[in-house]
């Protein structure tokens, strides 16, 4: 942990300008201190004792959305997103993280979720905390908090599918935002708790629509040495829906009359976890048309500004970044934006003049409203 792990990245990135054209935060602000070179240089000043952490410098490190586009764009794939995360660990270690970030960690400590006590959403006929179900649906904290309609849609699909399913009550944070924000130990502890809750329910399939939770379960838990029972298969909702369609557990009787749907690739789902085709295939099946590709798409898709809890910790910057992405989307003149991450939905909804739907909501529209 800490700076020593990313010294090589720091050394290679601090004078290199080559990826700045791609960085979504830079595109929004045009500040050099918002570029991967900027982060590496600032951190190396601190590492070499030339500077101390200033408030502005700390703010910059928390204005990166950890989207990983710089790493993707780089010929040598230097892990700049990791560098930023390690810098945050240093900042947390000296207790200087911004108030909003502190608030997130404190909220998880107090309530189990970054956003405090959840709103009372009505999910309908939900069998919470069932043992040995086919599916355990893990909605994710920000979905519960800001997008109950997405929870409704996914649970509607589960009802429609005829599978037995359950949700955790209470559902607590998977640990991923804590990790991203510089609290690795706390993230590991949180992961242990979640893994225990999941093991107790022992589902065959763990489905989440949140790409951050998905990445935590698939990639980070094994890295952190937190094990889920090997009998539990983890799926993102896009893969799950695609599978339900292939197995004819969901049958579409009609198509939505939409010919210009843009699909925005969430960074965590696409670039970080390599899921690009399931959502595209679902859109094709639902509308009869392939989605219109936004100019930078798939692994080169720009972040919407929500990543790394930015939509919550620094809404001002997040909105600026979202505007850049919305301008790109607008160029395609779409009728609808579809995405597969609730935080992308939040960010894009805040700036777009057309509807933004999660992929589960798209399906539910053809299946016909409430499936509870």
């Amino acid at each position, binding site marked *: 942990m800490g700076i020593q792990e990313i010294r090589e990245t720091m050394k290679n990135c601090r004078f290199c*300008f080559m990826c700045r*054209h791609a960085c979504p935060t830079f595109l929004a602000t045009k500040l050099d201190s918002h570029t991967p070179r900027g982060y590496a240089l600032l951190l190396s000043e601190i590492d070499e004792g030339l500077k101390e952490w200033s408030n502005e410098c700390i703010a910059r490190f928390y204005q990166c959305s950890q989207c990983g586009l710089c790493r993707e764009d780089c010929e040598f794939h230097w892990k700049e997103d990791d560098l930023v995360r390690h810098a945050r660990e240093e900042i947390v270690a000296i207790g200087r993280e911004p108030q909003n970030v502190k608030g997130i960690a404190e909220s998880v400590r107090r309530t189990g979720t970054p956003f405090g006590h959840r709103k009372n959403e009505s999910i309908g006929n939900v069998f919470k905390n069932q043992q040995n179900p086919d599916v355990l649906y893990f909605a994710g904290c920000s979905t519960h908090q800001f997008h109950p309609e997405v929870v409704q849609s996914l649970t509607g699909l589960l009802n429609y599918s005829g599978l037995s399913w359950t949700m955790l009550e209470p559902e607590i944070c998977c640990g991923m935002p804590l990790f991203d924000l510089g609290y690795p130990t706390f993230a590991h502890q949180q992961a242990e708790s979640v893994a225990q809750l999941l093991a107790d329910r022992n589902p065959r399939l763990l489905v989440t629509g949140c790409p951050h939770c998905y990445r935590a379960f698939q990639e980070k838990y094994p890295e952190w040495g937190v094990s889920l029972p090997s009998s539990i298969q983890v799926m993102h909702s896009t893969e799950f829906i695609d599978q339900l369609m292939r197995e004819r557990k969901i049958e579409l009787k009609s198509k939505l009359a939409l010919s210009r749907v843009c699909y925005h690739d969430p960074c965590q789902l696409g670039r970080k976890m390599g899921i690009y085709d399931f959502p595209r295939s679902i859109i094709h099946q639902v509308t009869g048309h392939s989605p219109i590709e936004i100019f930078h798409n798939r692994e080169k898709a720009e972040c919407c500004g929500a990543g790394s809890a930015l939509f919550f910790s620094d809404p001002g910057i997040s909105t600026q970044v979202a505007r850049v992405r919305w301008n790109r989307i607008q160029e395609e003149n779409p009728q609808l934006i579809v995405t597969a991450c609730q935080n992308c939905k939040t960010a894009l909804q805040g700036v777009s003049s057309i509807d933004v739907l999660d992929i589960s909501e798209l399906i539910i529209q053809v299946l016909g409203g409430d499936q509870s």
Partner: protein
Amino acid sequence: MSQDIDYLQEELIHELEKIVGPERVLTDQAEKDVQSIDVWWITRYWFFNREPFPQPFAIVFPECTEEVVRLVRWCNEHQVPYVPRGGGAGDSGGSWAIHGGLVIDLKRMDKILELNKKSLTVRVQSGIIQKHLEEYLNRHGYTMNHFPASFNTSALGGFISTNGTGVLSSKYGKVSDMVHQLEVVLPNGTIFKSLPVRLHSTGPDYSRLFFGAEGTLGIITEALCKIYPLPERRTFRSFILPSLSEGIEAGRKIMVNGLMPCLMRLYDEFDTRHILKNQFGLEQDGCVLMTGFDGLGKIVDAQMEVALDIMQQSGGKDIGEELGNTWWTNRYRSYYPPLDYICEPWMTAVTDTVAPYENIEKIYWEMKKAVEEGFQKWNAQFHAHFSHWYDWGTSFYPTFLIKNVPEDKKEALSIYHALIDACVMASIKNGGVINEHHGIGLRFGRLMKEIYGDNYNLALTIKNALDPDHLLNPGKLGLGD
């Protein structure tokens, strides 16, 4: 800093905020620090040696020409030095605020204003990153054909200001060949717009003053650039010539026989060994020459046929298309660390030189000798490629490198300056011009009088007339302190 000065600065900042809005005036140390280092070795050396950087008191981000006008007038009124900045990725410290003052960062001036599909032009604000402009053009079926290695990161205004060159320059020229019209905010705060076409005889084309002026004569705010339809075909072919002399002669024949290769790249023996080994696992002497043609398929084929004849007559061994194709696809790769030296504390610089054919090879050997023999004690390395060709001459792009930089700062700097002097002298004494495209800035500024002789008085006269108080990018291009 005393309370009074703090208070004064607050007032100044407040006034700047009235011009561009509070969110576009930055005074924070983080941004100043990151902007302090460009690609000039000295700026990195300053960092390694913990030297304090010259820094502005504020950085402003205008979004339109009108705001630039108001900023320039404000600087005049308060006698504040100001420095225009594009990508900040120049090689010569050109955007270093050596006298403090204000940095006018143009990267928010990135709008594409008009695409003219009839006369094939695009009108654009000067702060746009070249790659963003090219992406826009490509999506509409066009290209600017300007592909410098800093394409990802430098701005159009920066390229105009250093009169940059891209890898397809042998056909498409330097930036000065790519721009029809410029809009510039002059140091007196008025707007100058050159005539809508540049090939006229209605007086001199005054826009030429600003190509290569490195922000010392005005701030470029808008340009009308030439564009081309995306080529139907682009084909590369590579050859191994027995020696550098034969390579240069073969290249010359291609250029003087009316062919228009988009790509001409001749590598010296050092670079050739490296390339052949990396690419083909070959240990072979000689010099690789890559050439390429683009445009309509029939024209490409016809030109390639003639080029093949010339190469055969010149003793060139045809090694096919693969090397060129791979190079084109990966043309920026070597600029990423760890391949780029930039990540190392090594002393390095490029001293690109252009000269007529009769002089170019001699300059190459003289410069190589001056570096390798003159600085043998420090194990100085020198290698080069010849990458911008014309029908009257060509240019080479040499890199010198010293890995064991002396610990003593005075000694290190004196070696660096002596190396620069040696390269410049090797060039000018043998009829060449040093700096083909990497900017003069502070790196070569002190040598401008040497390079031009008394002729440089004209430059000083123009500077004094346009910017009598020397507030605009002072100290650069050898135009005063």
